[in-house]
């Protein structure tokens, strides 16, 4: 019984939240890694692209709610998501046309493109705040829980509750579908293959007659879709606040680099590595230890780091990976 209680506590406070968070990071890191693999620079504007896309999705959600259109037990935001993606894709394509295309034409160094993306980040940052403000916004509606804490306790007779929120399940399901669609696209379609070819060997891709403008445009559209989806899922699961999305940039980059920049599979693995480390390190293990080790009362909370320092976890992992395995777990390009 004690063992089961410990297990449920770990599930409830570590596994479930970290899985949802990991799926969100994985989607974000996929966007970063695609841009890195194909356009060959680290896109610092990705976090704010997520914020912008989520902002648009929220506005459309409000509109749909005002019209009385909903999805029943599911959040209305899922219905608004395609609109968010379309408008975000239009924005990044316009940005590419106005800003990035020039630097590609003069064949600038990747580090300059990265700095350019910092500029784009600030503009998007301001745009998002003008649009939707700086406050925290809750926009999840519909059924709140799939497994409610009290119901779980009565059903199992355990002391520990387990709650799984609808948004957490949606996050994992949607992320799974998106990843499947992306991999199918990259592996099976002509355009997807040409993107991989372009990422592998740009000169040979050009010699083979692959149109670079087409590859670049499709990459941006996919990156916008991934960013908006990741941002919306994160916002549904927690809440929307423009500044938080800017801060998400660190764990997202850490995830992409841990997995190996340019490697989509690595981005997914990296997302979960970062999420589980962050949640695991900042969780107070006292309760679990009390269940597992009889007749022992821990003195502290058995918490390695307080939650305020959660970004230090991604930062530390990032440094360790860059020092000892710069190409990441899945052999990406070295930074």
């Amino acid at each position: 019984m004690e063992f089961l209680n410990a297990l449920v506590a770990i599930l409830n406070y570590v596994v479930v939240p970290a899985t949802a968070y990991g799926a969100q990071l994985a989607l974000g890191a996929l966007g970063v890694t695609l841009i890195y693999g194909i356009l060959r620079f680290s896109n610092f504007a990705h976090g704010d692209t997520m914020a912008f896309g989520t902002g648009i999705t929220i506005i459309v959600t409000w509109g749909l709610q005002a019209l009385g259109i909903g999805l029943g037990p599911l959040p209305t935001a899922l219905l608004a998501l395609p609109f968010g993606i379309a408008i975000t894709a239009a924005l990044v394509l316009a940005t590419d046309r106005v800003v990035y295309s020039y630097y590609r034409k003069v064949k600038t160094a990747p580090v300059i493109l990265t700095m350019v993306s910092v500029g784009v980040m600030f503009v998007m940052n301001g745009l998002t705040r003008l649009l939707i403000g700086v406050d925290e916004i809750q926009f999840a509606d519909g059924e709140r829980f799939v497994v409610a804490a009290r119901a779980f306790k009565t059903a199992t007779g355990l002391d520990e509750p387990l709650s799984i929120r609808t948004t957490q399940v949606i996050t994992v399901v949607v992320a799974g579908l998106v990843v499947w669609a992306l991999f199918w696209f990259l592996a099976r379609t002509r355009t997807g293959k040409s993107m991989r070819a372009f990422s592998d060997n740009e000169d040979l891709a050009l010699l083979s007659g692959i149109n670079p403008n087409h590859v670049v445009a499709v990459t941006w559209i996919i990156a916008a879709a991934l960013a908006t989806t990741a941002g919306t899922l994160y916002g549904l699961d927690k809440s929307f606040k423009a500044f938080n999305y800017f801060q998400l940039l660190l764990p997202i980059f850490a995830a992409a680099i841990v997995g190996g920049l340019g490697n989509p599979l690595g981005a997914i693995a990296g997302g979960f590595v970062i999420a589980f480390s962050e949640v695991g390190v900042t969780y107070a293990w006292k309760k679990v230890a009390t269940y597992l080790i009889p007749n022992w009362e821990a003195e502290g909370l058995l918490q390695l780091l307080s939650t305020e320092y959660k970004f230090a976890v991604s930062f530390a992992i990032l440094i360790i990976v860059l020092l000892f395995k710069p190409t990441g777990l899945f052999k990406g390009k070295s930074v």
Partner: protein
Amino acid sequence: MSFLDASDMTGGYGAADILHGCTLKVEKGQIAVIVGPNGAGKSTAMKAVFGMLKLRGGHVMLDGEDITALSPQDRVRKGMGFVPQVNNVFPTMSVEENLEMGAFIRTDNFRPTMEQVYDLFPILRDKRHQNAGELSGGQRQQVAVGRALMTQPKLLMLDEPTAGVSPIVMDELFDRIIEVARTGISILMVEQNARQALEIADQGYVLVQGANKYTDTGAALMADPEVRRTFLGG
């Protein structure tokens, strides 16, 4: 008129010229080989034919058509195939996907061409689901040549196809190149292994400092005591 006629090519990458009135001609279905000492401009001459280098003088004619002003991509559409010396495959893509990418500009069914490539290089059929980056050097060269053949080129250009492969693999590659030429494809090739290359060459060019030093049939160059002494090591 020759199938490929690149005459009096003059030009270089920066201000200084590397090619000084270099002329290369290939007849239909024949093999032309460019040999010469290091730094003679062999690869540069090849790149000039393919349009990767701006020419200050001279012209390039393919099948009677002046293509001097065309980009490399447009030359591929006109029937040129180019196999670079290095980085000539997509390493994280399978052999089959490499061939598919070679056929990217084709809108018709390219399966028969792929079958022909597999018949020419049977090992590629066995390894078609393996990533090109995991293959041996010789196999990777076969992928590179196969990829270039997928557009059904009329002129195939090979920049040191046997660089870094064992002598046995080199012989095998040369045999395959002869087979390709027999199907009516003209071949222009830069080679370090001058002796072996001239043996299979219908036409040989010895370049020195960006200009033609000796031009003759492969056999005649092999027989020329002057060429043997200076370039073939006796």
